[in-house]
């Protein structure tokens, strides 16, 4: 797959220099079986629009937890989370659902496609949760997303008929179909072989080039380096937060 560099606005990062995510003093404690787990400890983080961030760290350090909080799949036990200028504290369940639907796209390690729905229906699913999109528009958005991940030929297949790499491409298409402002990916290549992993990674690069804000958890240092910025978590704390100099070189 090649990247059409001409379609990318070279000034994108500068234009969208607004913080889309702002975490201040975030804590997350799990209580299970009389055991308190401090999954996140005083996490402060700011993500600006158009950024491509990778999150790394040893197993159990709190990466997925952080991503769940960012994606409003879970709530923090302490601290403040501002998403696109809105404080997320005190949002109703419906409001949180609406934000997840419009502003956030998820890509999971385990693909998490719905097995009863075809590829096209899976991609269409989040769009059906919106009231303001006509069926025709939905269809064309699905077409677009399918095209971006190069899966048009499988639109009517079911997830079980696809390879892992293909499933993950569909999952990416589902995440981006609604033009979210933030894409959250938790080890998107964790279940894939290196060839398929490379395909998915370059998909993410491509999305980033087109202006998407991406937050990706990964164990693979090489993948991490494809992001502009790397955050390293250790024991629930951010211990490293740095800009990757070599990003562009690898991307091309």
């Amino acid at each position: 797959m090649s990247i059409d560099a001409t379609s990318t606005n070279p000034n994108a990062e500068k234009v969208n220099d607004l913080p889309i995510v702002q975490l201040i003093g975030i804590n997350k404690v799990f209580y299970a079986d009389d055991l308190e787990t401090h999954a996140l400890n005083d996490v402060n983080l700011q993500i600006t629009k158009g950024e491509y961030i990778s999150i790394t760290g040893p197993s159990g350090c709190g990466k997925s937890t952080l991503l769940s909080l960012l994606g409003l799949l879970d709530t923090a036990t302490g601290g403040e989370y501002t998403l696109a200028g809105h404080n997320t504290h005190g949002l109703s369940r419906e409001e949180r659902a609406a934000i997840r639907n419009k502003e956030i796209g998820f890509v999971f390690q385990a693909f998490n496609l719905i097995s009863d729905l075809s590829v096209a229906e899976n991609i269409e699913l989040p769009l059906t949760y919106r009231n303001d999109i006509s069926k025709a528009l939905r269809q064309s958005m699905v077409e677009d997303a399918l095209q971006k991940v190069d899966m048009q030929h499988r639109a009517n297949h079911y997830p079980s008929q696809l390879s892992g790499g293909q499933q993950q491409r569909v999952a990416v298409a589902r995440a981006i179909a609604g033009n979210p402002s933030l894409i959250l990916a938790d080890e998107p290549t964790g279940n894939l072989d290196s060839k398929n992993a490379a395909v998915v990674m370059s998909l993410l690069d491509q999305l980033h080039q087109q202006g998407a804000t991406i937050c990706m958890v990964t164990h693979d240092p090489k993948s991490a380096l494809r992001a502009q910025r790397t955050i390293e978590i250790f024991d629930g704390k951010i211990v490293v937060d740095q800009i990757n100099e070599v990003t562009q070189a690898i991307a091309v």
Partner: protein
Amino acid sequence: MSVAIDIKYAARLLAKKPRFTALTILIVAIGLGLTLYTYSLLNQLLFSDIKFADNKPVYIIEGTYDKTHLERREANAIDLYNLKNDTSIIDELGLYVEGTTFVGEPGGTLRKFNASYVSSNLFSFTGIKPMLGRSLLPSDHEDGAEEVLVIGYDMWQGYFNGEQDIVGKTVSIDGDDPAKIVGIMPQGFAFPAIADMWQPLDEEAIAPTKRNRRWVSSFVKLKDSISLNEARSVLKTTNLSIANSLDDNWRWLVDDGEYLTIEPMKKAHLLQYHGMFIALMFVVILILALACINVGNLLLSRVNERIKEVAVRIALGVPQQRLILQMLLESIFICSIGGILGLLLAGYGLDITNSVLRDIFKIDGYMPYWWSLAIDGSGIALLVATVILMIVVTGLIPATQSLRSDFNALLRDGTRGALSKRAARTTKVLVVSEIILSCVVLIMASIILISTYSASNADYGVETENRLTATLQLPPSEFEIRSDTEFEYEDRLRRSAFYYALKDELTRRDNIENAIFMTQLPGTGGGTSYFEIEGRAAEVFDENPYSNNEGISHGELNTLGMRVVDGRDFNFQDAEDGARSILVNESIARDFFPEGDAVGSRVRRASQAQENTNDWFTIVGVVSDTFHGSLMDISSAQYNTYHSMDNWGPWRMQIALHYVGHEQLARNTLIDAINTVNSNVGMYNLQSYNELIKKPTLLIASVSKIFLICGIVAAFLAASGIYAVAANSVQQRTQEIGVRRALGAPDNLIVRMFIVQASWQLIVGVCAGIGISLWLISLMSSTMVFSLNTLIVAMVGMPLIIVFMVLLATLVPTKRVIEKEPAYALHYN
């Protein structure tokens, strides 16, 4: 041994979840217990054949079952006689009539005994010989032959104190008829009914020369080459030819081609409950199926819980049979223990039923001798077979289900999302079957429960507290019946006079308020005939209204709390020869004489033969409503007419008396009064009014209790099963809920998704359930009548309860998942 490891593993799994294990065992025990109980009940009361040494099934041939009164009808003797001689289906045919005989010296105390009047071949038919003396001989039937008795062992030991030289002795029966005891039957001999003694039928019943009024039942063995169905079709043609040969007076005998019928002997005794028992059988089979599905589903949800472990085992190369065996082990354990408990439950239930059966026949002793229930070899065989079936069903549901899952995907993704589509389909099928079964079971159980409950709690329109009843029988030797002679009216008056003399004697006593005589007291009887209102005859006689008709003594209605509403009670005028007065009840007056013109109108018995134009009866009074007849059917009870007993003088009457003080005292008073007036009159079935009206309902009441238990069990199984399968189907989709919520699905959409799914399952399940119920009801309706209200309550109420249960069982687990953060559902495994 590796299997030993598996057994240990299964035991550990069960021990780890004691509540789950107890619940599944309980469900199995209830399902199996009910099955075994019902099988034993039906097999011994209904399905197994009665056979003697020659191993040929015994059938009953008699008149068509009377559906209006739910009563058996005897056949005209000549038709059975011709059937035996003119067709070639019958190997052996014996005749019998159940009756009552009083034994005792003239002037002394009379004892009532149940007598079977039989044909002499009874003893060769059964192959059982008397232990002393001889059995009946063909010559005993002849006119003018010496009166003889064959008595039973219990009567010999009880009444005759086991006297050694009893055979040959002459005793007095029915007043002062001498009869010679010629033989003693061995202990336990009770064919064709439990009886104390056997007496020969008269010649006109055995070998009638023309159509007469001799009514008999017959017990038969068919020729070896003849099947029951072939016999039925022969009877069908026989009935048609009988119908064609009848003259006008007898035309009613064959109604629409229906007359002689043949049924297996056991079934013939239970025809009125046959439909109910068949319904019981279906309900129990459905409950068993429900129990299977519930346990299967519970085990399935357990396998789903450890599906990953199963996947790992498969990855490790466990052989298929080994894996299936492992899953079956749990079922084997649960079903075997459940089976043992079920056996105990069934035994306990049968004990209770036995005591109920004994209660039913406590007073009259007419219990069919095979009505004694026990778990026999075939019951145990059925239990073992059912246990094996349950093991297979409950074990194979989860086993095949998990084998079919896509283990590769399961291991690769480590998620439940990989559970195959088949798994989801299994769950859907389970939910729908659960709904169908619950629906049918609850509908059937509630219909029969409501019907039987209202039958056993019917209001008969009479006071029953402090009322005593008995049946009186006048001895023919003293109270002759000289029909069609100049003495006829005189005889009638004499018989009536006895009853009034007894009433006077009774009311002289301090503890007796009043006494009334009726051919059949309210709560019993019910002899329906069509009546024609003068000037308003229907085109066809059986389109006229019908009523139950009783003979009654005059002036004593208040004994039972009955009232004259309009006109007058009977009085001395109605005793005149040829006086034709009649009383009708309020229902008749209201429904057929709405203008209030009942009194003074004339009615007569409607029949096909219209030539008797003089038998119009004038309505002289309207009395309060009472209910006679069958309890499952109020049709015969609704309309009642009464004739005066005064110019009729029935030779057998029921008496009801209103007493004060102790019941025992009143019993003694009645016996004493009878002995004072005429000690040769027989009295039997002495019981309180409450006992009298309870008796016909006892069997229904006890079956109703079985249905109540079935209903409770079904409701419990349905509720727990529906909850489990619905919760299971939500649980299976927990991760999907997480994904959908991550994609931004609002809560109400998720809830709606599950409600829509449940609604489809409900529509399919409830429609099928109602359809099956309707079919079952049509099966039963030939012997049972259900009120529209009952049907509506059951057909609408029960499905509503199920809809409610399913929606609740869907909403609660869905809500529970939604209440948690989406992250939880996403990582749910």
